[in-house]
């Protein structure tokens, strides 16, 4: 039993905690031995029956304080039984105090500490102690009124006090032991979770498409900073921009952290499958939404899908509730294309907009974390600041523009905790004239594109077969 007590906190961790705990247990044992020694010292006066009552009750309390706790740990005494037993012993102590002296009431202390310890609530110890003191005072007043003379303690009271204090010491030691054990458990769990989150972050980062692609006259750069280790923002490329069709998607799963990251992985997978089956962004988003509707408890996802037809320099856009992309070409325009986010309703169909992209144009896609980035006072960065920053840096290359935009946001937030994932993707069409491609060359070019990004060859891609037919119709 003492071994059990002694080793409650793990010895190999939290050395200071273990020493404190061992000190408390040691103190409790020494004071108990001292008390019994004083009581039984041969030179003591003849002990009246009351001192034996005191020692008996104190021993009972001490045994209960130590033994009850160990029986509970071993599963032999459930919490309810412990409390009933505690109530009975408190009653014995209380009644005995009327015969053996009011100092005996101090023996209630270790039991009250034990109740607080069991409930894991330190404040309960204080509440119970105050309530008990009040009750004792009340009984005293009542007895005084009816003329009952409670025996006053002398040296025997001291013995009971010492034993009670040792009990309190033990209870507190156990309380501390349990507390430290919990702290150790939390520390271990936190370390384990941190390690898992680090791995999850690495996996998510490795699954993200390349952050920069330059092909011919088209270049793209993207950056995503999750609010936590992993996030729900994503971007995706459907190969390939130059000399053929190139799809770009950006999305934001509602929420943050692991739940958002898991949902994001599902959305990306569904999107990749659907994007390869269809060409038109509106159809693709419709299909992704239908697929997500089939998933139970799937949250909301905003997503924008655009693809470039380089033969006509046309951008085709469909939007499922995502931030409107910004077209930058000396002046600034927004593609104001509303749409219900994915995962909200299964009867939604998406509109699609087409627009010519002139050389020297940049298209900025971003998630709401950009405009809703907050400083320490809760002020949002906002659309205006973002638009102003884009205008200031419109002549930069995509990667450089990302650098300055993220710096602007960082300067604004001044180190305040990031409340949402932040993602920006910039597509730029250089001023140099693009190479003309005949529709007949598309198949071969697309093969080259897929080969260059190490993806599945087009024989297994229904989208590409469809693409050839559709592309002829466009021209």
């Amino acid at each position, binding site marked *: 039993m003492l071994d059990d007590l002694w080793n409650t906190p793990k010895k190999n961790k939290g050395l200071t905690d273990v020493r404190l705990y061992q000190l408390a247990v040691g103190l409790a044992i020494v004071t108990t031995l001292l008390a019994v020694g004083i009581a039984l010292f041969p030179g003591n006066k003849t002990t009246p029956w009351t001192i034996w009552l005191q020692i008996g009750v104190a021993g009972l309390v001490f045994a209960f304080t130590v033994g009850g706790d160990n029986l509970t740990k071993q599963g032999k005494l459930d919490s309810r039984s412990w409390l009933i037993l505690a109530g009975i012993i408190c009653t014995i102590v209380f009644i005995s105090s009327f015969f053996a002296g009011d100092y005996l009431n101090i023996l209630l202390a270790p039991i009250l500490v034990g109740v607080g310890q069991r409930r894991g609530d330190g404040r309960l110890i204080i509440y119970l102690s105050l309530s008990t003191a009040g009750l004792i005072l009340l009984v005293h007043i009542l007895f005084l009124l009816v003329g009952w003379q409670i025996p006053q303690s002398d040296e025997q009271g001291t013995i009971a006090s010492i034993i009670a204090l040792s009990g309190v010491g033990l209870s507190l030691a156990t309380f501390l032991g349990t507390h430290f054990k919990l702290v150790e458990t939390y520390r271990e769990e936190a370390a384990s979770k941190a390690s898992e989150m680090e791995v999850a972050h690495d996996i998510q980062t490795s699954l993200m498409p390349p952050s920069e692609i330059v092909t011919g006259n088209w270049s793209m750069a993207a950056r995503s900073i999750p609010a936590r280790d992993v996030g729900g923002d994503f971007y995706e490329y459907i190969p390939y921009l130059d000399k053929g069709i190139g799809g770009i998607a950006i999305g*934001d799963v*509602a*929420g943050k952290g692991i739940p958002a990251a898991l949902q994001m992985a599902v959305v990306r997978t569904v999107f990749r499958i659907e994007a390869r089956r269809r060409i038109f962004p509106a159809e693709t988003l419709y299909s992704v939404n239908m697929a997500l509707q089939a998933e139970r408890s799937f*949250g*909301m996802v*905003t997503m924008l899908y655009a693809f470039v037809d380089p033969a006509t320099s046309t951008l085709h856009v469909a*939007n499922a*509730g*995502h*931030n*409107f992309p910004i077209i930058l070409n000396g002046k600034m325009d927004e593609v*104001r294309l*509303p*749409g*219900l*986010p994915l*995962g*909200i*309703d299964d009867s939604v169909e998406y509109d699609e907009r087409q627009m010519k992209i002139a050389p020297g144009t940049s298209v900025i896609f971003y998630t*709401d974390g950009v*405009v*809703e980035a907050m400083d320490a006072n*809760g002020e*949002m960065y*906002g*659309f205006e600041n973002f638009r102003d920053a884009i205008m200031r840096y419109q002549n930069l290359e995509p990667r450089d523009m990302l650098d300055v935009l993220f710096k602007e946001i960082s300067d604004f937030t001044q180190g305040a905790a990031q409340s*949402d994932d932040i993602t920006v993707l910039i597509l730029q069409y250089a001023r140099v004239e693009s190479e003309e491609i005949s529709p007949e060359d598309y198949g071969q070019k697309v093969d080259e594109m897929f080969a260059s990004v190490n993806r599945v060859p087009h024989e297994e891609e229904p989208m590409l077969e469809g693409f050839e037919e559709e592309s002829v119709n466009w021209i």
Partner: protein
Amino acid sequence: MALKIEQGNDVTMIHILNDSVDAVSAREISAAGNQMQGTTVLDFGSVLFINSAGISALLKLVIEARKQGKKLFAVNVTAHHRKVFEMVDMLRYMPIAKPDDMLPLMKS
């Protein structure tokens, strides 16, 4: 409670008292859905921030209400949230109205 609900002449006015609409307060708003009458007005006057979970819950609420033939209006919406509502197509289901236009409905 994050909401104050007023009932008028076939009109329900739901004042959102929280400064942010998140998953928790959005659940309260959703729960208030069964108190909606023919016309419901959501007052965003105190709202400074709506996160994605809040938007999601609001969208589900307004779409469901519209499917039941109810009319919804939003009042006191900030410029920022007006834009967010536009992006997610919320305005199709819940147009933004002027508070002054809604008050007579409550009194009539």
